[in-house]
């Protein structure tokens, strides 16, 4: 009896986890998408007569203003565009590269497999931030370079995940029978193997969007990421750091935005893992 009760509790909790994650992620995405409608032009409007206004003091500047008199709320919402863009595009790129590499190296094995796996070893032993500062010193900062950097440093995770699953599947009967009736390699890879791997890949993607939002903001905070003039969460935190002593709100709100976005995605990812990947191939 008690086992039944605890299982019921558990599933109710899982629903709560999903609802919280979906509301947080959905709400933030909606706000960010509508930012131009909600606060037209406010993110960049400088008003030196309204410098460093405290939050919650006036309805016009609910989160206060920054050292140039720009509205913090409008900038936080606009800054989300960069984070979501980097998170989504970099993960999409890493998935395409990683899944193809993983399928090919797991299915054909041999020389190519060895090259991909040794490359993965090398990458896992290199601290990401140091790789990033070297890469950015060569090619410069900016949005597209950062996305390329994230793709380079993360496709390996998908390649390893997919390769491992392909190794387990390639000798199963359904693949052997497909080979026997002469299905082309391309169709075996993408129509027979790929659908069996979608679950774990989606879980890893959700968690990686969260992780890449964190990485993007740290790089931008360190001055290695997107252009400081574009509103972004990491950039606002770098600015706010100087004013920590007398204007806490400039650094508190952008950080909260990162925390809530990443938390929403992590909740969703955790829920998805239990739903799509019960055997735990993606567990950390």
């Amino acid at each position: 009896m008690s086992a039944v009760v605890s299982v019921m509790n558990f599933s109710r909790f899982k629903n709560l986890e999903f609802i919280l994650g979906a509301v947080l992620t959905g709400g933030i995405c909606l706000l960010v998408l509508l930012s131009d409608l909600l606060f037209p032009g406010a993110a960049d409007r400088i008003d030196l007569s309204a410098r460093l206004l405290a939050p919650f003091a006036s309805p016009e500047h609910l989160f206060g203003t920054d050292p140039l008199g720009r509205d913090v709320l409008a900038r936080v919402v606009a800054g989300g565009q960069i984070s979501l863009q980097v998170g989504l595009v970099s993960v999409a790129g890493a998935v395409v590269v990683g899944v193809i590499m993983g399928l090919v190296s797991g299915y054909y094995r041999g020389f190519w497999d060895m090259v991909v796996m040794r490359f993965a070893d090398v990458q896992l032993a290199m601290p990401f931030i140091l790789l990033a500062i070297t890469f950015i010193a060569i090619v410069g900062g900016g949005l597209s370079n950062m996305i390329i950097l994230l793709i380079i440093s993360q496709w390996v995770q998908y390649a390893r995940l997919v390769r491992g699953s392909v190794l387990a599947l390639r000798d199963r009967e359904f693949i052997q029978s497909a080979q026997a009736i002469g299905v082309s390699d391309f169709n075996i890879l993408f129509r027979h193997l790929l659908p069996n791997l979608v679950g774990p890949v989606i879980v890893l993607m959700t968690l990686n969007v969260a992780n890449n939002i964190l990485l993007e903001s740290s790089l931008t905070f360190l001055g290695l990421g997107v252009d400081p003039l574009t509103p972004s969460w990491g950039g606002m935190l770098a600015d706010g750091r100087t004013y920590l002593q007398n204007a806490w709100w400039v650094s508190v709100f952008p950080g909260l935005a990162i925390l809530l976005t990443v938390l929403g995605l992590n909740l969703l990812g955790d829920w998805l893992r239990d739903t799509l990947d019960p055997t735990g191939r993606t567990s950390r």
Partner: protein
Amino acid sequence: MVNFLLKRFLQAAFVLLAITLIVAFAIRLTGDPALMLTQGAGSVTEADLAQIREGLGLNKPFLVQYSDFLIGIFSLDFGRSFLGGTPVSQLIGTALPATLMLALAVMVVSIVVSIPLGIKAAVARGKWPDQLIRILSLLGLSFPNFWLALMLVLLFSITLQWLPPSGMDGFSSFLMPAVTMGIILTATNVRLVRTSMLETLQSQYIMVARAKGLSERSVLYKHALRNCAIPLITYFGLQFGGLLGGIVVIERVFNWPGLGTLAFDAVGARDYPVLQAVITVLSMMIVAVNLLVDIAYGLVDPRIRTE
């Protein structure tokens, strides 16, 4: 076993060789140190620049520079900094202990906190303590580490004025950097402890231990914990790389005189010898820890050796 060890050593050596080669090559694409050194020096002729490059040894072919660097590693000679000519080994010698001490403090904090919490969650599986711990760990995973650091500074240095906001000076300066990284690492570790405990608690010797009438404490901490020690040590070892990466960022916030600060200053000045030494030393540590974990695992579990 000899084959297994040999294979792992060769793999590790290959990884290090590849990393040093990539780093040495990439670093030379970041820009000309001679230009950085002469910035703001007024009229500089091309002949002056060439002379500086020759002084720094940058006129030699790349492969010669690389092999010099590689041979130097074995005698812990990483060359001299382009700025001021201090031997790089001396700079590393002061920065490495600062980073390692911080890493150790974080590891200790996180292991001490996550083991009891993870065990609690596993024992109370599905009940509210488990769910509370799960939510808190998801929250901990979602913090941007540098922002958490800023918030701690805001609270403990600016508002309460209890702790120094930056620098490395005595025990109190360790608290905030260690807690920042500790919270994030603990969030991961709690889940690892919970998962391995759940598996262990279902095994028969735990039932026997309980049937013998041993106290719950002794069952959990003596019998169960000892048996999940091996997977846990593996996980903790594998995190080392990520931990070092996080510390590099945190050092920047707290002005911690470690390898991260050294690397950031070096990349700004195009100080090749320092930057390539920092990346090499960090990668060597990560590879060494992974190798040790692998070997330990191979010793304990014969199946790994014939993978």
